């Protein structure tokens, strides 16, 4: 209602009513989850105790929050909207702020100086965390999500088993380097090729399926790869994983192995520290990410990329235009898988250890969530989503001060998935098409105008 609260005496009564109602719902919702806690006593028996104070807090927050929203916030927003509509000024301006226009350049420069910035600010030991846990970790997910974006965002094929290709890449590097001693730079492209081959092998029988069916089969494929890795103990050492995987070197010129004569730190006369390797890895994954972005951007403007997007929009129309949809889907699958493979071999080199634990379905789900949150098809949006989701998880680890508030047995990391879900719900409520919902056209006659997300489709398989 646009009526201001003063002229609407029923408004306050309604707010109170809704507040009480929200309180009642909250009471019953949280009664068992929050109001009662189970724990083990000294005899290891499961007993329970009540937490009425905490429950009261939850109920009060819900009731007062609802009361304020209905009573004050909503009328205020409505009033503002009405005034704006009355004044007749439309809010359609194409002008973007300076920062907005040059966002990509800023981001790139920041990424390039990031390791040195962290070195300067927190020193060698401190920057290990920032370069490795934040920088490299996020960039791996950026790369994976960009790879999956080709399959899901561009071609519109819902792939729930993307982590399988990540695993293929990681194990390709781990196995071939430990059995045959091949170097990272030989195995990086090989892993990509292997993953792409697996993508094609999976794709051939599967891509006749569409929508939900495709999602289920790809999900199964991801699990099969993981189970093979667990059970084929002769080769993969099963759940023990493969340890002691060789580090990557700077194109074989400088090594990061401590004992090696061409050790990077020794050659340059630096104090030995593992941070150099991390910084090197940071630039490697940054380069890989940029390669992914470059290839994606170039491919989008090629006929094959347009065919992918057309496939997402309408497969039957594609066939009526003489496009071989099976081949088109296969190339999308293989290209996406290839980048997953690259990321996988990088992951193995960085960890020095791979085990099937790293390639569970949850990883696929997280990567897919990043793609969806970022806005399917948009590289910038996906990168932002990766920073928010993966960086957010890492930040949670740093939140030990929350223990002061919630008690010593509060571990913020455990709430990761809860927050993940919450973040997704909020983003999907306010930006149903993800952070960047619009689409950049790949060709134009007069001017390049972004296509609003309301016209693009998600694809149905």
């Amino acid at each position, binding site marked *: 209602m646009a009526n201001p609260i003063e002229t609407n005496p029923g408004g306050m009564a309604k707010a109170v009513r809704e507040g009480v109602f929200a309180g009642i719902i909250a009471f019953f919702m949280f009664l068992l989850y929050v109001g009662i806690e189970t724990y083990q006593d000294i005899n290891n028996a499961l007993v329970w105790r009540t937490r009425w104070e905490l429950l009261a807090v939850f109920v009060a927050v819900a009731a007062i929050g609802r009361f304020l929203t209905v009573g004050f916030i909503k009328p205020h927003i409505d009033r503002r909207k009405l005034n704006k509509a009355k004044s007749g000024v439309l809010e359609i301006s194409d002008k973007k702020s300076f920062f907005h226009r040059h966002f990509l350049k800023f981001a790139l420069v920041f990424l390039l100086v990031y390791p040195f910035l962290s070195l300067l600010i927190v020193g060698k030991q401190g920057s290990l965390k920032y370069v490795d846990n934040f920088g490299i970790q996020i960039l791996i997910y950026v790369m994976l999500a960009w790879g999956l974006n080709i399959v899901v965002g561009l071609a519109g094929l819902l792939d729930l088993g993307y982590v399988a290709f990540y695993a293929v890449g990681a194990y390709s590097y781990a196995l071939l380097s430990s059995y045959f001693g091949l170097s990272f730079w030989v195995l990086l492209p090989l892993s990509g090729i292997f993953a792409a081959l697996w993508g094609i092998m999976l794709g051939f029988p599967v891509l006749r399926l569409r929508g939900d069916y495709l999602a289920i089969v790809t999900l199964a494929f991801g699990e099969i790869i993981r189970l093979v890795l667990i059970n084929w103990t002769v080769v993969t050492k099963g759940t023990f994983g493969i340890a002691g995987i060789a580090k990557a070197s700077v194109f074989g010129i400088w090594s990061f192995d401590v004992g090696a004569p061409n050790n990077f730190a020794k050659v340059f006369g630096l104090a030995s520290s593992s941070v150099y390797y991390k910084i090197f890895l940071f630039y490697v994954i940054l380069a890989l990410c940029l390669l992914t972005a470059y290839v994606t951007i170039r491919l989008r403007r090629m006929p094959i990329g347009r065919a992918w997007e057309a496939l997402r929009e309408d497969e039957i129309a594609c066939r009526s235009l003489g496009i071989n949809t099976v081949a088109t889907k296969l190339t999308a699958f293989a290209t996406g898988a290839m980048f997953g493979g690259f990321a996988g071999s990088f992951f193995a080199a960085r960890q020095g250890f791979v085990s099937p634990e790293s390639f569970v379905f949850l990883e696929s789900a997280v990567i897919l969530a990043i793609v969806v949150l970022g806005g399917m098809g948009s590289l910038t949006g996906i990168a932002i989503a990766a920073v928010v989701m993966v960086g957010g998880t890492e930040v949670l680890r740093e939140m030990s001060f929350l223990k002061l508030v919630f008690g010593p047995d509060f571990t913020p990391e455990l709430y990761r998935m809860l927050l993940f879900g919450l973040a997704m719900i909020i983003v999907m409520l306010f930006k149903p098409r993800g952070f960047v919902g619009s689409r950049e056209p790949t060709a134009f*006659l007069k001017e390049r105008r972004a296509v609003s997300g309301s016209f693009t489709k998600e694809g149905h398989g």
Partner: protein
Amino acid sequence: MAPGTTAMVKDTILKVDHLSMKFGGLMAINDLSLEAKRGEITALIGPNGAGKTTVFNCITGFYKPTMGMITLKRKTGKEFLLERLKDFEITKHAGVARTFQNIRLFSGLTVLENLLVAQHNALMRASGYTILGLLGSPAYKRAVEASIEKATYWLEKADLIDRADDPAGDLPYGAQRRLEIARAMCTGPELLCLDEPAAGLNPKESLTLNTLLRSIRDEGTSLLLIEHDMSVVMEISDHVVVLEYGQKISDGTPDHVKNDPKVIAAYLGVEDEELEQIEEQLEGGKV
């Protein structure tokens, strides 16, 4: 008769022989034979449920016919048996393009992009199946320019040039119909199959559609169209085939078909004595 193709004897571009299509127990098409001549507009009409769209789907490969043969003869003299080809091969190799009864555009792509997607096969070849294109070969760049030129040509013909950079889903209905035809033409077809191109158009839009279809024919592409709008059918077609219950009941020039009592009965389901009255109505409807 199409001007420009003067005294040349018109050969057959499409020949449908004893086509039957069964869906379970339903005989959608029953032993249908028809021919479409090169350089002509052939219309396929009939009451709702007569099997027109099924015939289309058989010709364009979206259905595999239960029986029968569909032969397409290209300008080069090469013949294709369409029932043996996959749907995309029919467009790619045999040069048959189609539109849909319920418009199927790539609504999230711009109008121009829609027309570029239609030139996929030519561009793929020019880009060396993407590899040469990624390396930035000059031949590919020329091909891209040519494809944009071709798209521009059809945008101008379909009167869509001002909307080239808008998303296809943003166009009004009539423009979407024209865009779908332009997109089909960008595949460079010899036979264009239109499934109810005038459905939902207002009289003015129907008129521009007629002009567009005629000019497509005059440029050497044969047309096969399903249409309910008699003002379009009678106005532009050179040859009309009438279907009812999956069978051909009449075949000939528009005038011949219009006066065929079987056709009138099929459409209106009337007694013979009322025929005269209906003929008058048809005459009136044409003007």
